[in-house]
């Protein structure tokens, strides 16, 4: 794991020239170069990767962003864009000797347009702030990653952020109708115009989840939805995690689209219960939280149907929240699961694989076997509705070798997800963290096509270089370590 906390060497003449040029473009408060000032930007939410950039810029206008990009392009300097830095895959890890471009000063809500159910905001606006601004009109912005009080919409688009309500309301890609971006060459481009579609290729889809590799987002237009009249949640306990998995399939097959459907296993339930006293049954092998929303009558009807299916699927107990306070409490337990697990181990490492739901019982069994083999406990928190697993590996970074063992276990879990027909990342992104696991999910042809897509937007390759898509050589090296079922991946490559 790169942990390049070396003291910064003296800048080279070219770097001095760059810093001088940046100082001409920006007010003094918008340019940081002192190592102490750079320190808060050395990592994102995945703090095991740290690196200091050459400079941090905090532009205040789109023109400044364009000027910075033009300068970086002319001097061939890498640029990494950053929102709130809450990402969990090292996507905002600075490039060595590069510019870290923070969008933190772009915090204006430009327009709330209730009749068209649209909001246009700057990229540094926090996810939850959009819903707060729209609330007066009975509207909200649906995607709600658990970091929504801190994470920003620009980062949400870059990562195609999800959350607990994706099954019914979609991911970021389903809720963005327009972007303004600055290209690697400093050109301002409008993609989409707030209309339901746009002429030409679907570049909005390409930008969503592009991890800052294609362009820098400077404005976002999102679709707003009417706030449901009512939501109700059922909490079901199971004595067998496989039964909980089958209950999920039965709910979906029964024609229901829950607003949220979450699963937690024993370890996660116990940690959460000890932390926030949400009223979870600590003896359960797994719990399911199933929320339905909509009109009053509809919700009353749906929650009874949910209850029935859960009991029929073998739930040992089903409770529905007696009031809004209890509903919030049930959710507080789930939303606190990560910090709760943080209390029972010195460190934890959060994985993000997605699998077809039917594979859940088998994948959980295999994760449990891997956990025993590596000697590291794993707590499972799961967006069950959309198949997105968040196994949390418990470890102690201060014990020699434990972090490496934890990462190796993590990679095995991701390989397991791919083998089950799933993916290495459902919503956290590839970033720096999962770049080697990309070699398991994709063959050389796909990776070459990804690199070509990047080059179509960023021919100089200066935007967030080295992230998200591994080079074929990197995969060849990784493949030498990871031979799956005796098949040599990327066999057409020269080995070295």
């Amino acid at each position: 794991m790169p942990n390049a906390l070396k003291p910064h060497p003296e800048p080279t003449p070219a770097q001095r020239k760059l810093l001088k040029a940046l100082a001409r473009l920006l007010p003094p408060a918008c340019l940081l170069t002192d190592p102490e000032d750079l320190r808060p930007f050395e990592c994102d939410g995945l703090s095991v990767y740290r690196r200091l950039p050459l400079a941090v810029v905090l532009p205040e206008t789109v023109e400044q962003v364009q000027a910075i990009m033009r300068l970086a392009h002319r001097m061939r300097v890498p640029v990494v864009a950053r929102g709130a830095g809450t990402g969990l895959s090292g996507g905002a890890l600075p490039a060595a000797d590069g510019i870290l471009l923070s969008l933190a000063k772009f915090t204006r809500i430009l327009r709330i347009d209730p009749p068209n159910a649209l909001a246009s905001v700057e990229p540094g606006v926090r996810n939850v702030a959009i819903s707060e601004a729209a609330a007066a009109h009975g509207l909200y912005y649906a995607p709600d990653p658990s970091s929504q009080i801190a994470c920003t919409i620009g980062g949400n688009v870059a990562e195609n952020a999800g959350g607990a309500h994706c099954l019914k309301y979609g991911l970021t890609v389903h809720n963005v109708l327009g972007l303004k971006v600055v290209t690697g060459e400093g050109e301002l481009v409008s993609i989409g115009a707030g209309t339901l579609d746009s002429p030409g290729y679907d570049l909005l889809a390409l930008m969503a989840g592009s991890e800052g590799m294609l362009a820098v987002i400077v404005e976002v237009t999102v679709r707003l939805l009417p706030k449901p009249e009512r939501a109700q949640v059922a909490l079901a306990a199971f004595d067998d995690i496989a039964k909980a998995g089958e209950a999920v399939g039965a709910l979906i097959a029964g024609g229901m689209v829950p607003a949220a459907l979450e699963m937690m296993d024993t370890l996660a339930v116990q940690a959460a219960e000890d932390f926030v006293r949400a009223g979870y049954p600590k003896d359960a092998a797994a719990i399911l939280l199933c929320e339905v929303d909509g009109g009053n009558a509809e919700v009353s009807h749906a929650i009874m149907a949910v209850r029935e299916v859960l009991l029929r699927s073998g739930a040992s107990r089903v409770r529905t929240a007696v009031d809004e306070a209890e509903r919030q409490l049930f959710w507080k337990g789930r939303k606190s699961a990560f910090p709760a697990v943080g209390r029972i181990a010195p460190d934890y490492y959060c994985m993000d694989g997605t699998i077809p739901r039917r594979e859940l019982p088998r994948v959980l069994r295999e994760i449990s076997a891997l956990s025993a083999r590596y000697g590291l406990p794993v707590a499972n928190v799961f967006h069950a509705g959309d198949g997105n697993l968040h196994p949390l590996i418990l470890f102690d970074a201060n014990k020699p070798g434990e972090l490496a063992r934890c990462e190796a276990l993590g990679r095995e879990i991701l390989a397991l997800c791919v083998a089950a027909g799933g993916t290495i990342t459902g919503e956290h992104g590839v970033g720096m963290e999962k770049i080697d696991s990309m070699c398991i999910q994709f063959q050389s042809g796909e990776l070459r096509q990804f690199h070509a897509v990047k080059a179509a937007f960023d021919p100089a390759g200066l935007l967030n270089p080295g992230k998200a898509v591994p080079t074929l050589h990197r995969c060849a090296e990784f493949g030498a370590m990871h031979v799956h079922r005796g098949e040599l991946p990327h066999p057409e490559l020269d080995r070295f």
Partner: protein
Amino acid sequence: MGATDQSVALRNQVLGALEAGTALKICGGESKHFLGRTTDGQALSVAEHRGIVDYDPRELVLTARAGTRLAELEETLAQAGQMLAFEPPHFGERATLGGTLACGLSGPRRPYRGAARDAVLGCRLINGHGEVLRFGGQVMKNVAGYDVSRLMVGAYGTLGLLLEISVRVWPRPTHSLTLVRECGPSEAIERMCGLSVQPLPVDGACFHEGHCYVRVSGAKTAVQDAHRRLDGEVLHDGGAFWEALREHRLPFFAGHEPLYRIVVKPHTPPLAIAGDWLLDWGGAQRWLASTVPVAAIRHCVSQVGGHVTRWRADGSEADVFEPLTPALARIHRRLKDCFDPRHVFNPGRTYPGL
């Protein structure tokens, strides 16, 4: 209809075209050939590459070969109480899944349950190097790599040949009701926009010949509740109306005047362009039958931030799709070149040079 996997034969045809330096014109059921610009390549038929590869209703995901007929696929879904949420127009019984997605068309439910592109989870395709590539997958959440699968939707086959597509499906609502009320276009726009900001199970809203049509769908209680809250007369056989609208079988579409598809923000007031109007998608997709020159229509629509597609040919050489800004056109050319450097797939179908 028998399932057959023609991917090897299709790839060989692509490789042959690459070697011979000829272009290919991709054909599915030939139900949407009237759309877009003409392209003169050698016909490459995907119609025999068909069959549902994987469908488990509990997963809400269906994977099928590109040549699978839409009608067959929808029947399979209906048997399990499910559907394609984007309510795709067929424009002919031979319509295929691949062609539907390549054209990226969505029906009346689009503003409420998402577009064709929103339903796509993954695909297998042949790119312009003749490589068979797989993007996305069969799961709802997947952020590994760029979203190439959704990029293919609406690309009219100009970036690659779709072989197999996984789509997300939805439970079919058990109940549905259409309410009609007489009103003018401005009032209809207010009404339709007002509905989409209320928590009602609306999944269709249209203005046609002095009437505003609103469809609500969902569980019985939800539909009953919505009926109590909304005014208007119940339209008997509402299903037939929405199908006729989706398939352009209403008399409105039968004329011979040039027909335009205009997409604007839904709350845009009625546009002052002479002709007959039909408003779908709650006001966001508007159909115009008009003899006004296309340049004048485009000018007017661009003033309100919308875009115009020439739907039915009028013999002119004007662009079918809204011209792109220079910056976007450059990105489009580079993308075309990176997927299909020899311009073998449907060259010029969308724009000259793509």
